[in-house]
């Protein structure tokens, strides 16, 4: 039977939603082992079982930066075990571990996949999602693939508690680094990844101060607020709000794009929203090509009226 490993990063004591998406996909292709990186708990392991993991290899990084020790522990394990496929998410720790592991074992990696087969064949959205590239890894197993968030729906299957094996992390000498502090930025409203409604702003807002319009509208709609890379790079809002290629991938019920022209980098992160409303001055802006309702107009006029009308309701 085919074997699939899934990299699972712990967040707030539980597997990340992205990891559950990957487990759901993995169990349809073969016997699934979760590589669980975090403190670990009965509850967390049970959750891995619910989503299809039969076995868990548990690695607790403590205050080590995860990438080098986890990659090397996995590489050691791969000397005797040969899974067909190892899935990672297109996420920070996943990328760090996958990159180091691939270099260590000399394996090719396919990144940004939106579909994957047990033979290491993949699909990728390129050029802002306008074209699909099919690719494959031509070397033998294991094949390493990084999957974009929200490519698969996470569905529990009611699986039993998995068999858990604790793995000691190896000494990594000069390749090691330590995490000496953690800071959580305050956030109002729902998380971007989970929100049913998202209001996002771009360059068309004109200035950082005008992002307040996005926040006010977001609050009225119980929405999460997002941003384009352009205004994140400009320092108007923190990176945590960035939607797009190098930011978050979102699929809300409603996405309201305000002063966003629709650069490919942005579209690829939000084009699968169920309903898209766009407000932009430029009638030729690419965002109108995918918007269900496009308003050709100035956000500085439309948004205050919209906010006022909603406040009255």
């Amino acid at each position: 039977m085919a074997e699939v490993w899934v990299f699972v990063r712990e967040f707030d004591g539980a597997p990340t939603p992205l990891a559950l998406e990957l487990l759901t996909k993995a169990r349809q292709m073969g016997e699934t082992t979760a590589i669980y990186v975090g403190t670990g708990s009965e509850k967390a392991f049970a959750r891995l079982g619910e989503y299809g993991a039969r076995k868990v290899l548990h690695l607790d990084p403590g205050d080590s930066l995860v990438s080098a020790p986890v990659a090397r522990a996995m590489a050691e394990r791969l000397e005797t075990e040969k899974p067909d496929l190892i899935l990672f998410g297109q996420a920070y720790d996943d990328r760090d571990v996958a990159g180091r592991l691939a270099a260590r074992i000399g394996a090719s990696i396919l990144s940004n996949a939106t579909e994957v087969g047990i033979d290491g064949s993949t699909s990728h959205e390129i050029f802002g999602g306008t074209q699909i590239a099919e690719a494959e890894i031509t070397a033998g197993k294991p094949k390493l693939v990084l999957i974009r968030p929200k490519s698969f729906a996470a569905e529990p299957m009611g699986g039993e508690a998995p068999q858990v094996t604790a793995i000691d992390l190896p000494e990594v000498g000069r390749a090691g680094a330590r995490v000496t502090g953690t800071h959580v930025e305050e956030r109002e409203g729902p998380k971007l990844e989970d929100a049913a409604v998202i209001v996002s702003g771009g360059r068309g807002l004109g200035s950082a101060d005008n992002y307040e319009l996005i926040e006010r509208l977001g609050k009225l709609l119980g929405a999460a607020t997002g941003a384009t890379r352009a205004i994140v790079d400009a320092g108007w809002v923190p990176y945590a709000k960035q939607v797009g290629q190098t930011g978050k991938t979102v699929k809300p019920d409603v996405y309201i794009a305000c002063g966003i022209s629709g650069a490919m980098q942005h579209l690829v992160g939000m084009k699968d929203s169920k309903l898209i409303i766009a407000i932009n001055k430029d009638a030729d802006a690419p965002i109108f090509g995918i918007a269900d309702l496009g308003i050709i107009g100035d956000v500085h006029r439309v948004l205050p009226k919209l906010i006022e009308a909603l406040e009255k309701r």
Partner: protein
Amino acid sequence: MRIVVCAKQIPDPATPYKLEADSHWLVRPAEQVLDDTDRYGVEMGLQLAQNSDGGVTIVSMGPAGSMQGLRQALAMGAEKAVVIDDPTLRGSDALLTAKVLAAAIAKEGFDLVIAGTESTDGYSGVVPQMLAEILDVPALTYATEVKAVEGKVTIHRQTATGYEVVEASLPALVTVTAGVVEPRYPTFKGIMEAKKKPVDTLTLEDLSVKADVDQKVTSISNAPARSGGAKIEDDGAAHEKIIELLAQKKVI
């Protein structure tokens, strides 16, 4: 402190990207620009070098072409550039790219390697981590702040909810986000000086790396197009249309 900054020349992102018919490789014109994400790495390198009495060397893989992009990095203040330009590198994957960069960087010598988090044209997002593993150094990734003093590097590592403080001993590799520093614009003097700065061109043979690639693109097709819907000109009452739609979708 000896600082190496990885930088890439890419086709101008403002122009439409095209793929070659059979190979599905990206068409690269002779005139390529410095990847915008690398401007942050160059600036970070220059600031750290200035504080420690060192210099910045740019290391780049890909067709050198007119070297416009590399000259841009030199015009910002880097001392020299090393470019690995070899026809057998066309169609490289992330691992081959990392092997080539690692060999060139090891040859140069370094205390700190700086790279962007991912390139704008290829964006595999794993090359710096591979590079760190090959060089046997820590990869302090997604930095929004970098300090390097007395043989130690400390960064703020961006996370989904904020940041972590991560520290390691040098030598090390750091990847930087766009928020890390404000890149300077080259001055006229810098642009003139850049023309005279040394650029070493290396081939794979110089680095003893084999051009093996274990992946390929098998086909390209058009994605199912999502078509736009109603497009209306704001006549002062467009917000009512939005409210109507939101009410219909039971958002309000």
